[in-house]
């Protein structure tokens, strides 16, 4: 089971006009694996992550989740129906949380499951309670997002994504917008997911977190994967000069 390809990216390339932001990237993530993508800003790491669920479609190449090609070329209507379907299996957490401010925490979590999975109100409420308990915010169920701290917002955002029972979770700099003292509570939730063997792809600037939680680390720069390997190798013994330079700046802090 564990050596089975779960998320596969083949020859991924993306360009805006003449600007190439991703160049021939290949990546295979196995079930239950946790992969960190690190690199300087503008390296293409967020773009790659956002290509996985078609938020930023690739110019060429393929993205697969198990045996389903996510970025299939289809006529518009079929394409929309297809991505709406596959996105239900791919949870995503954003830097700026993107909670729905007009809905309570409960509303945020239950909206998609009710609409897309036809859950009854009672079932959806139960689901919201479960997911909130998991991120330790049961008492906030009827609050509006504006009443929550950044860390709480991000935990609710994680609960919202988990409520769709995704097969894989994507984290796009989930703690970058947080005050330093709020980072840990979000990291704890992510660690907990790791212990439950959730497949995760994490774009992050936090080297310590990547080192302690991830099975593999990809270092990207200028649209290519410069180096990849287990955190022990990447962080302690990187081969590539660019990787070393990047890490020198980030680890010395």
């Amino acid at each position, binding site marked *: 089971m564990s050596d089975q390809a779960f998320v596969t990216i083949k020859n991924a390339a993306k360009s805006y006009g003449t600007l190439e932001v991703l160049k021939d990237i290949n990546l295979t993530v196995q079930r239950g694996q946790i992969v960190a993508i690190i690199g300087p800003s503008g390296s293409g790491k967020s773009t790659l992550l956002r290509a996985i669920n078609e938020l930023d479609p690739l110019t060429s190449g393929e993205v697969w989740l198990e045996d389903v090609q996510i970025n299939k070329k289809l006529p518009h209507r079929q394409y929309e129906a297809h991505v709406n379907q596959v996105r239900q299996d791919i949870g995503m957490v954003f830097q700026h949380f993107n909670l729905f*401010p*007009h809905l309570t925490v409960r509303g945020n979590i239950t909206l998609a499951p009710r609409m897309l999975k036809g859950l009854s109100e009672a079932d959806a409420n139960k689901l919201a309670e479960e997911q909130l308990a998991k991120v330790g915010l049961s008492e906030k169920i009827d609050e509006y997002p504006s009443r929550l701290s950044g860390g709480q917002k991000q935990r609710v955002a994680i609960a919202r994504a988990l409520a769709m029972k995704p097969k894989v979770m994507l984290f796009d700099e989930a703690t970058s917008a947080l005050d330093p003292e709020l980072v840990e509570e979000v990291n704890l939730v992510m660690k907990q997911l790791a212990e439950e063997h959730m497949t995760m792809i994490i774009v992050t600037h936090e080297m310590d977190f990547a080192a302690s939680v991830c099975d593999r680390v990809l270092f990207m720069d200028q649209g290519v994967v410069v180096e990849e390997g287990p955190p022990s190798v990447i962080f302690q013994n990187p081969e590539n000069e660019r990787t070393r330079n990047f890490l020198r700046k980030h680890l010395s802090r």
Partner: protein
Amino acid sequence: MDTELILRVYPFFIEAAWVTIQLSVLTAALGLACGALGAAARLSRLAIFRWIAATYVSVIRGTPALIQVFILYFGGPQVGIQLDSFAAGTIALGVNIGAYMTETIRGAIVSVDKGQTEAARTLGMSRWQTMRKVVLPQAARLMIRPLGVNINALIKGTALVAPISVVELTYTAQRFIGSTYKPFEMFLLSGLLYMVIIYVVGQGIHWLDRRARIT
């Protein structure tokens, strides 16, 4: 100032104010309908709809509302559109304010943070589900005030149907000036009534805006 004259004629002005109110309500309703359609077209995936809406907005905003009223009322019969002055006035003004409301509504929709759409789409919601459940409820709050500005303008704009003899406030003032030669009193009286209407509507908009903010 001839207060006695004012006391004698004011019932006619009250009646005229009622016509102005009816005009305003119908114009606003038509304008909102045009604005909603226009905004949907402006944001459409299909270029043809975007083009039609952009043309509508630029033609209407690029010409005086008075000319639009005249074209429909005086020019209409030439091309087989025969409307009484009230209907012609309402339609012309409604279509006119609709162009401004198109931009207001579109502006509110596009100013909802893009992250909201991304979050909803990422959960698997369709474009339309996202629009209906996530974007529009937030845009609706953002558009209350600017739509209030449009409505304020359209109430004052109803004076533009006076030249086609709709018996509203401005026309009524002019009519009484003809018989009394007291333009100061007559225009003052109609101006005052416009102000009352606008004040009440303004309070309503303010109330709506505050209520929308709390939730």
